[in-house]
């Protein structure tokens, strides 16, 4: 028996007219969501995509020196190249000089190998005196580095359109002349230290936040309303104050002539002329970041603890568990979703923290984000800044993945 098609009153199949009616609603829903979707796309997806792109994009140099790289294709890369390569360099540099755009390649080539800056500048300056023919000899005469193969190899190594060299630099590695991946020289390995310090600071800030926030959250969740509200305001007050103000007030407190140092001297823990440095080092970063990130630990913990019925602890005790056993076996496991959420939140925020380490961290307390900022603003190596940013992003995603494997992401509660 086949099912009879149900018709609506105007003869159209009911299914069709229902769909038609629903289409309008769907369209409305889509229109309502559209602004947010576009907003996310513009401020989130697009910049991250651009960052990823920039971190591997290395086409500038190929575009600026087209003849050079074409000529270099035939070169074996061991001895000095032949005349055509030098002629191509001459043509490219001449073109760049006429357009006054050679500044860009100086910076780019100098990242590849220091020494290029003066080499290119001097060459460009004396380019007018170069006569036609025998470019190789004339170039070496202008600057002896044109006669050193490693500079030409470095020039050729700058050629690829896409490169992950910036990522290697981020972990203290580089391509050597033969395109092998090696560690950079001992005295230039700074990023490993920086990464380690960043993870270390983020880890300990998370631990300190957890130790401080757990009892506070417990108090918040169990105190009578009128006290817990007051305590909650104390916890949230930092949220309503500018980050800069809070960091600056830490600078006031922690400076060498500041109240905390006064107290230490007064207690006799240090002499007046030998006051400990609490700021412009890792201690300042720890203290200020822990205080600033504390609410991010308290709030998820509080929201989870609020849902734990006090009768559970009573049940544990009445069943014979000592207060400690009841806490470890009953209360603590039930707060794990909050601990997970809080730790993840604080760690991820701490690992990319910028303003506070910049202000109170000094040289030994600055983190990877400060380096990113440096490369964005001062050295203008945006590609490297992008690469570091991407590595940070990947690191955070990795932590997220590990957390998901260990605890389960459904087991996270923010409120």
């Amino acid at each position, binding site marked *: 028996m086949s099912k009879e098609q149900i018709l609506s009153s105007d003869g159209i199949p009911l299914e069709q007219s229902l769909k038609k009616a629903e289409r309008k609603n769907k369209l409305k829903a889509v229109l309502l969501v559209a602004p947010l979707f576009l907003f996310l796309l513009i401020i989130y997806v697009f910049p991250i995509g651009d960052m990823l792109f920039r971190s591997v994009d290395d086409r500038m140099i190929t575009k600026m020196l087209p003849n050079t790289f074409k000529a270099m294709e035939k070169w074996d890369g061991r001895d000095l190249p032949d005349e055509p390569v030098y002629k191509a360099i001459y043509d490219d540099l001449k073109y760049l000089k006429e357009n006054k755009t050679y500044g860009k390649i100086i910076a780019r080539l100098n990242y590849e190998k220091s020494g290029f800056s003066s080499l290119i500048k001097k060459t460009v300056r004396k380019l007018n005196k170069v006569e036609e023919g025998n470019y190789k000899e004339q170039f070496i005469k202008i600057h002896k580095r044109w006669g050193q193969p490693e500079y030409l190899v470095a020039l050729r190594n700058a050629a690829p359109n896409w490169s992950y060299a910036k990522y290697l630099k981020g972990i203290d590695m580089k391509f050597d002349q033969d395109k092998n991946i090696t560690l950079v020289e001992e005295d230039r390995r700074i990023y490993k230290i920086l990464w380690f310090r960043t993870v270390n600071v983020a880890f300990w800030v998370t631990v300190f936040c957890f130790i401080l926030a757990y009892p506070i959250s417990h108090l918040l969740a169990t105190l009578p309303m009128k006290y817990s509200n007051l305590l909650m305001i104390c916890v949230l007050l930092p949220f309503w104050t500018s980050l800069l103000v809070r960091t600056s007030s830490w600078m006031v407190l922690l400076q060498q002539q500041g109240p905390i140092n006064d107290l230490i001297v007064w207690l006799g823990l240090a002499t007046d002329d030998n006051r400990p440095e609490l700021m412009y080092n890792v201690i300042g970063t720890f203290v200020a970041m822990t205080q600033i990130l504390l609410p991010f630990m308290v709030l998820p913990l509080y929201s989870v603890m609020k849902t734990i019925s006090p*009768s559970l602890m*009573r049940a544990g*005790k*009445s*069943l*014979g568990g000592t*207060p400690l056993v009841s806490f470890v076996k*009953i209360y603590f496991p039930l707060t794990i979703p909050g601990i997970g959420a809080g730790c993840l939140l604080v760690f991820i925020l701490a690992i990319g923290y910028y303003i506070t380490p910049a202000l109170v961290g000094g040289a030994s307390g600055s983190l990877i984000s400060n380096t990113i900022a440096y490369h964005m603003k001062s050295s203008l190596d945006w590609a490297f800044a992008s690469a570091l940013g991407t590595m940070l992003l990947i690191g955070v995603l990795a932590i997220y993945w590990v957390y998901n494997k260990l605890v389960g992401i459904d087991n996270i509660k923010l409120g």
Partner: protein
Amino acid sequence: MANKQFVRFDNVDKSYDGKELVVKGLNLDIAEGEFVTMLGPSGSGKTTCLMMLAGFETPTNGQIYLDNNVISNIPPHKRGIGMVFQNYALFPHMTVYENLAFPLRVRKIPKDETDKKVDKALSMVSLQGFEARMPMQLSGGQQQRVAVARSLVFDPQLVLMDEPLGALDKNLRESMQYEIKHIHESIGVTVVYVTHDQTEALTMSNRIAVFNDGKVQQLSSPDELYERPVNSFVAEFIGENNTFGGEIIDLSGDKCKVKLNSGSEIFANPIVAKSKGEKTTVSLRPERAIIDPQSSMDNNHKGKIEEVIYHGDHTRLRVDLLGNKEFILKVPNSSSGMNIKEGKEINIGWNSSDCRALDPK
């Protein structure tokens, strides 16, 4: 011989704020193996008493004895008292088995014995095969049974239950009442049960302590409590009750004459009010008053039916009788088909012995 004073409250006071006593001079003896219910309206101090017994609150004055030992200084986890909480308080992150094994594990009982005891406790509440479930996967009634099993699994001598059936629907509540009663009878554990539901208290308990205003108003068996309330609070609180306010004008042996506020006179049984001229509240159960009594009854008055409410097995009549417009009568549903209609005048009779003259309200 069972210990008659297994649990003893000796002149216990409790105050939370130092201004007001929520429990006043409480004396209460509970025998071993007894099922005693603390019944009372909310705020009457019954839960506070239970919490003091469990060790979560300390008495402000007085002592609590368990098996002749003072327990005021023993922390809850060393008292060995099983407890069922209002919202079950099952550990949500543990399976049913782990919930039941918790009290055994903290007592370092070996694994095979734990298994045996858990199995026995679960079979007691007919929940075998649910060991691996999480509490969230159980219905309210099943969670309740797990909570009962958990409170019994470590063989405590005393189990406290704090309104354990409050969250269940009516049918489930009734069947759980019988189940808990049967468990109590079969293992002979002493149970102290707190509820504000009088039917629950009447069906389950050996004895009921009616609490009001921080004091035990009456402690007696359910039938005693219902048939012979000692004061008007108990009479009002337990079951349905018709009351008349009045004054004793004549007294002879176990019978007295009460002049009601409306001016009529009735005969009553003097319980609290025992002298002439005393103010009293007369209490009469609805089922003890009969329409058109055949045999002679010493109270016989005319009343007017104000309202008829059909209840299936019986019909309730609201009657205007002797100035009390809220006088309730229960007429059993029988085939005789009495002629009861609103506005009709009827004869109502009752025995003076069922009609108790208590303290004035």
